[in-house]
């Protein structure tokens, strides 16, 4: 901020816009929920929610859709952070959906091709319906992926949780339309206009703690389809795959079975930001197996109700 000219930096401008979005949802919808993955984007969401509502409590709970295939560091971090900020956490479990017969696992762990990524959608939509949520905050950004570049800040979902990209509501100025019928909901993306670099710069500016897997560490990994995956109890190795030790860090944090690591020596936030600023590959392209299925993999999952 420049006191002489009353100017805001780009991060301050983005932050103010995000806070405005949080408050609009709280004011206009009855039962919002904040989706939290333990990843950097949702950590930024929590800080923005604090900025929007303190000294009051959040007018909504936090929900983690838990595939059961987690990085243990992330779960430990999640519980500590929620405790620290003093808000309520709901855990919606994919394992419960499997046990209840709501979804069937194609390749149950420890199969080599196990993935619960797509199953999350059912767990998420069930949890939204069971709790009567009418708005769900997510940390998706438009710079992440082609389909997401087209998505509104207030993204309408019908009573099947579906996204119809061709019938989106026009979104003008900072006037958001949150009107829905019973059974429908809106997904709300307060950091739509942030880039990956903005998120990292904000984490640095705000001195936010993030799970330590975002920093370089030694890990036992194996290579598959051009990516490095963590050795875990959930995935078996295919013939010819040989695990090895490598200094890696994660650019995104998701399900351990489909989130790739990148080789890195960056052990501080400064070093990570420097690496991100210099990278020539997008974060989803580098680290998400789930987006490699087809050209429109994300659009297809989003249509079904994915994050």
């Amino acid at each position, binding site marked *: 901020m420049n006191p002489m000219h*009353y100017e805001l930096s780009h991060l301050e401008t983005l932050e103010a816009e995000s806070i405005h979005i949080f*408050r*609009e949802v709280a004011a206009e919808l009855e039962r919002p929920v904040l989706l939290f993955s333990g990843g950097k984007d949702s950590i930024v969401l929590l800080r923005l929610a604090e900025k929007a509502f303190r000294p009051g409590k959040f007018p909504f709970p936090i929900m983690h859709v838990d595939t059961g295939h987690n990085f243990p560091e992330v779960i430990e971090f999640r519980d500590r952070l929620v405790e*620290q900020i003093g808000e309520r956490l709901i855990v919606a479990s994919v394992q419960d959906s499997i046990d209840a017969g709501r979804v069937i696992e194609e390749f149950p762990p420890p199969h080599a091709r196990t993935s619960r990524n797509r199953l999350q959608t059912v767990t998420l939509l069930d949890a939204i319906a069971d709790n009567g949520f009418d708005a769900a905050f997510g940390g998706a950004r438009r710079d992440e992926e082609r389909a997401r570049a087209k998505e509104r800040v207030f993204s309408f979902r019908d009573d099947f949780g579906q996204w119809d990209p061709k019938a989106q509501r*026009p979104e003008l*100025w900072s*006037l958001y339309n949150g009107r829905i019928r019973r059974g429908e909901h809106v997904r709300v993306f307060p950091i739509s*206009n942030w880039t990956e670099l903005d998120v990292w710069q904000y984490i*640095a500016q705000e001195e936010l703690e*993030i799970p330590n897997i975002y920093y370089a560490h030694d890990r036992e990994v194996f290579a598959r389809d051009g990516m490095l995956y963590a050795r875990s109890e959930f995935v078996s190795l295919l013939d010819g795959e040989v695990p090895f030790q490598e200094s890696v860090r994660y650019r995104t944090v998701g399900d351990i079975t489909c989130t790739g690591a990148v080789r890195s020596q960056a052990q501080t936030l400064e070093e990570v930001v420097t690496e991100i600023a210099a990278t020539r590959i997008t974060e989803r392209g580098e680290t998400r197996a789930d987006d490699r299925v087809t050209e429109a993999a994300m659009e297809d999952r989003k249509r079904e109700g994915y994050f």
Partner: protein
Amino acid sequence: MTESPRRPWKTASARATSSLSPGPASNGHASVARSKSSELLRIATAGSVDDGKSTLIGRLLYDSKQIFADQLEHVVETSERRGDGYLNLALLTDGLRAEREQGITIDVAYRYFSTPRRKFIIADTPGHEQYTRNMVTGASTADLSIVLVDARNGVSEQTRRHAAIASLLRIPHLVVCVNKMDLVDYDEAVFDAICEELTDWAARLDIWDITFIPISALHGDNVVDRSQNMNWYGGPSLLYHLEHLVISTDRNLADIRFPVQWVVRPMAEEHHDYRGYAGQVAAGVIQPGTEVLVLPGGHRTKIAAIDTFEGEIDAAFPTMSVTLRLEDDIDVSRGDMIVNTDDPPVPGRDLEAMVCWMSSSPMKLGAKYAIKHTTRSARAVVDQLEYRVDVNTLEHVPTDQLTLNEIGRVHLRLSQPVMVDRYRRNRTTGSFILIDEATNDTVGAGMLVHASSQ
């Protein structure tokens, strides 16, 4: 990273407005944030494939190193597979399956790029008349609009329409890129003729900042670097212009406009008597001690304090999101507006506005809609349809309805007053949306021309 220190509410010392990051500067990473305190510039572009818009955006992204290797590889691969015969940079922005299949842009695509000086958001929209509503959407938040003219064809109907929409939406700055200069031998006379014709058009549109730049998006002339092929041109390259244009003076700092969004009342033991009014500053500089009115009630009071998560601050200005405390204990709720005492907005129930219609079901006389203006919602009935504007000729055409993508002058009567300014004075307090109460769709975008209380 060690554990982040938690910053409890209000224990932080009063935050000086000059310090960006309240954290300790000793640790290395605070400098990362500081070195990146660049401004944000929002750009709207409109155009079709043929005029080179995608090539221009592609070049801006590519030359500023914002296209990633995997994205480029994807474009190369897909262009080849589709048999496009050239590197189809439109594939970068056309993200939806239907768009890729039909080779068209059907929606607003947002692209992001940055240089050390600024961060840019491009709202990229299709240019055909049937996509006027997308153009209006992209233009609503823009600081600057880029209009492309094909040097070979001169000013087209589409060019005039883009300029008209930029003017109607009050985008403060217009840049006309006369593209494909390479195909007219970089001829100064061609450029001059286009400038002259569009300058005349702009005079009718009430555009106050217009810049002309001769470019070749394909070869990069005057996009990032000054061209060696047009020594007769003495102006900046496009990117230089985007980086150096002064936008901070576009904001209205004279009036105070603070729509109340959310009342912060923790009711908890430690903040028992706390009552703050949260919102985003739409105009003006608000300081502790400033005398204000709360509308529509009209109570006069003073600002007691401006709170943020980091603590109290000395001044709030556009577009900060803050929480205000007032000196007097008066009833204030969402939808009210805190304003300055001189020249406050008029609480009005009768609005005259330019409306862009966005629904396939036309706006008709006597129809009722929900209206959202700042943080206030009401109902509105269409009292009068004065005319629609032919955006290609600016002619006023009498009409009894507004159909999809049409823009017209409309009189609305509201169920309760809203605190409005003319759109040309304030884009936030001068704009509204109309919502169909049966479908819940956003069907109209309105810009206030006039309001009266009766």
